[in-house]
C-alpha cells in the first residue's frame, strides 16, 4: 500500500525524489500543484480505493509525502 502511494506520487510529481525524502515540501517546491493534486486523488481512488474529497484537507495537512501517507493510512 505504502509502496503504491509513493509510486503514484512520484509519477504525478515526475520526480523520484519524493520516494526517498518523505519530508519534501510538495507545494512550495513546485512538485505538486492543484492539477497534480486533483489527478493524485483520482488515481488514489482508482488504484487504492481510498476516497478523499478535494476540499476535505487543507494544503498544510498534505504538503509532504509523509503527511499524505499518514492520511491514506487513516482512511483505509
Amino acid at each position, binding site marked *: 500500500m505504502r509502496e503504491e502511494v509513493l509510486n503514484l506520487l512520484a509519477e504525478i510529481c515526475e520526480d523520484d525524489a519524493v520516494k526517498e525524502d518523505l519530508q519534501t515540501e510538495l507545494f512550495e517546491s513546485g512538485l505538486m*500543484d*492543484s*492539477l497534480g*493534486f*486533483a*489527478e493524485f*486523488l*483520482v488515481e488514489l481512488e*482508482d488504484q487504492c480505493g481510498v*476516497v478523499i*474529497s*478535494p*476540499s*476535505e484537507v487543507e494544503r498544510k495537512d498534505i504538503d509532504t509525502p509523509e503527511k499524505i501517507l499518514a492520511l491514506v493510512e487513516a482512511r483505509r
Partner: protein
Amino acid sequence: MNYYEGIAFFLLLILVLVGAIVIGWLEKPLKWYSLLASLFFAALIFWGNPAGILYLLAFYLWSVALIRIYFTIRVRDGRKEGIYHVFVLLSLIPLVLCKVTPLFHANVFGFIGISYLTFRVVQMIIEIYDGVIKEVSVLEVTAFLAFFPSFSSGPIDRSRRFLADWNRVLPRAEYLELCGKGIWKLLLGAVYKMVIAAGAYKVMGYLDTGTAWYHLVGYAYAYGMYLFFDFAGYSLMAVGSSYILGIETPENFRQPFISKDIREFWDRWHITLSHWFRDFIFTRFVMYSSKKKWFSNRLQRACAGFFVDMGIMGLWHGITPSYILYGLYHGALLAGTETWQKKSKFYKKHKDETWYQVLSWAVTMQMVFFGFFLFSGKLMTIFGLQ
C-alpha cells in the same frame, strides 16, 4: 443602511462588538450572541424592502430544506452521483434566476448577499456528497448562512471550519489575542476603504473626464487600486469583525501586487473565491474529466479546467459582456501560463534568476491591470457595446 456603509451601521457595529468583547472576556459562548446580532443586522438592513425579505426567506427555506433532505438521502443511499447532481443544480436555481432575469428586465431573487450565500449552500451539499459533513443541524446551518460580518460579500468561509469556531469557547487570553488582531484588521480595513480607496476613486473621476490615451491608461491603474483597496478594505473589516465574534474567517487578500505570475496572483487575490473555485470546480472538473478520459494529456485537461473555472467565475460576477470577457481572459492567461511553464525550456532554465522574476512580475502586473480594466466595463463603453 447597508453592511459596512454609513455612520449608522458603524455605530451599531461598535455597540454589537463591545457586547461581544464583554462576553468573550467573561469566557462565555459567543455563538448565541453572534447569531442574534446577525439576525438583528439582517432585519435592520432588509427593513423597508419587502421583496428583499421575501426573497431572503424563500432562499433560506429552500436552501435549508435542500441541505436537510439531501443529507437524509445521502445517509440512507450513500454516494449516488445522479441525485447529487440534481441537488447541486436545485441549490443553484435562485442564483441563476438572480443572474439571468435581469437580461429580461426582471429581478428575481435579487437581494444583498445572494451570490455569496450560494457558495456556502453549494459547498455544504458537495461536502455532504463527499461524506465529509457528518451531521447537519438547522440551527448551525442558519448561524453559518446568516453570519453578518461576511454576509454581503464574503470572505467565503467553509461550514466545517466556521462551525468549529462557532461552537468553541476560547480561554480569556486567547480570546483577547484574537480580539486584538480583529480590532487591528477592522481599523486597517477602514483606512483601506475610506481613505485610500476613496482617494483612488477621486483620481478615477478626474481621469474619466480626459480622452487622451494616457488618461485611459491612468484610469486602468487607478481603477485597479480602487478595486483592491475597496474590496480588501471591506474584507479586512469583515475578517476583523469576525475575529471579535470569535470566528477566524479566512483572509481574502495577501499582497496580490507582488505576484510573479497569474497563478500566484489568484493565490493572493480574492483568495476565498479562487480557492472555492479551485476546490469545488477546477479540481472536480479535472478529476471528472480524467476519469472520463475526455482529454489525451494533462496539459489539455488543465487548460480546459482553467477556462471552465474562470469562465464560471466571470458568469458569477454577472452576465454581462465585460464579466464574461474578464473570466475568459483570466482562463486564457492561466492556460497560457501553465503551457509556458510546463513546455518552455527557456522558462525552466531561467525561472530562478532575478531578471526573469522581475520581468515576470512586471508583465504579470500589466496583465492584471488590463484585467481590471476589462472588469470595469470601460472597454465595452469605449467600443459602445454596453
